[in-house]
């Protein structure tokens, strides 16, 4: 829910600052859908991969040498799960806006 509010607010801001009349539907639609894609890529590299590579390493060590898996693994697993689910949800409006950019003129010209 909270990230719906964040994304809607960001979309509104983007439309607000790019409202000179010369911006095309393609620019605006991809500007919002692509923004979601940009957030998703930051999630992938900034959160999901950063957390998962530790989890993978700890799990592999645990299986090979019996090293205990640190407590932090639970926290990271929860965080990467939340971000992964956020990306899952974001992908639907993203794909809609990508299609809309060429086939569904809803913004601008």
């Amino acid at each position, binding site marked *: 829910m*909270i990230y719906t509010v964040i994304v809607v607010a960001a979309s509104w801001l983007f439309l607000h600052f790019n409202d000179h009349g010369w911006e095309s539907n393609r620019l605006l639609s991809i500007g919002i859908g692509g923004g979601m894609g940009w*957030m998703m890529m930051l999630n992938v590299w900034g959160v999901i991969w950063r957390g998962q590579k530790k989890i993978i390493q700890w799990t592999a060590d645990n299986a090979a040498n019996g090293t205990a898996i640190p407590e932090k693994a639970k926290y990271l697993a929860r965080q990467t799960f939340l971000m992964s689910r*956020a990306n899952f949800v974001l992908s639907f409006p993203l794909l809609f806006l990508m299609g809309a950019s060429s086939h569904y003129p809803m913004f601008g010209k």
Partner: protein
Amino acid sequence: MLRHELGRTTIGYSSPAGSYNTALPQAFQLPEEQYSQERRGFGRNQRRFPDFVKTGPVSFPSPAIYNLQFHTRVVELGALTVSHINLPSDFNTNLLMLFRWLHFIGGITWLGLLYFFNLVNVPFLKELDPTTKGKVLPGLMSRALWWFRWASVLTVLAGLAYWGSIVASDASNGGASSGGPMATFFLIWTIAWALMYACLIPGKGPFNKDLCSL
């Protein structure tokens, strides 16, 4: 004459016997005698064309001739090689199409794996006992995440390259600079990401985690 009227909507050749193969490459030309035999129904068991050449009736998609069907020999491959593919020749069009193509491929790889993680992998890994998990998780996740994270980079870079050209052409039509949309894009969406990150920190975010993760 007919072909001239149809322009690019033509998808095959329809011609009276005798002239049907004049525009085809050497490899597909047949002697008139063989063609006539084929029309009369002789030699049906004998292949007169290479395997990859399809023959049969042809209809036209153009509304003006919507109802016409030409029951005559059509050499689809020959027709394609002669005049029915018009590749845009300017560099920029081809480059942008390449970006778009890579964007689709990268995007499908990325989102396909994302859907796999959310729909299949998360519930599946929960069911595994620790020993099996120790064997499955490292090999599965390191491979899947490699494609996942690099596909995301390919998708975003190819998409930005394409979007950049849209922004540039819009801006030049409007007598403005493309700096505005570009700057607001990165500024707004990076801030949005930071806010989302803050609000999704498990247990510590400014919002209750269950509220955030609804």
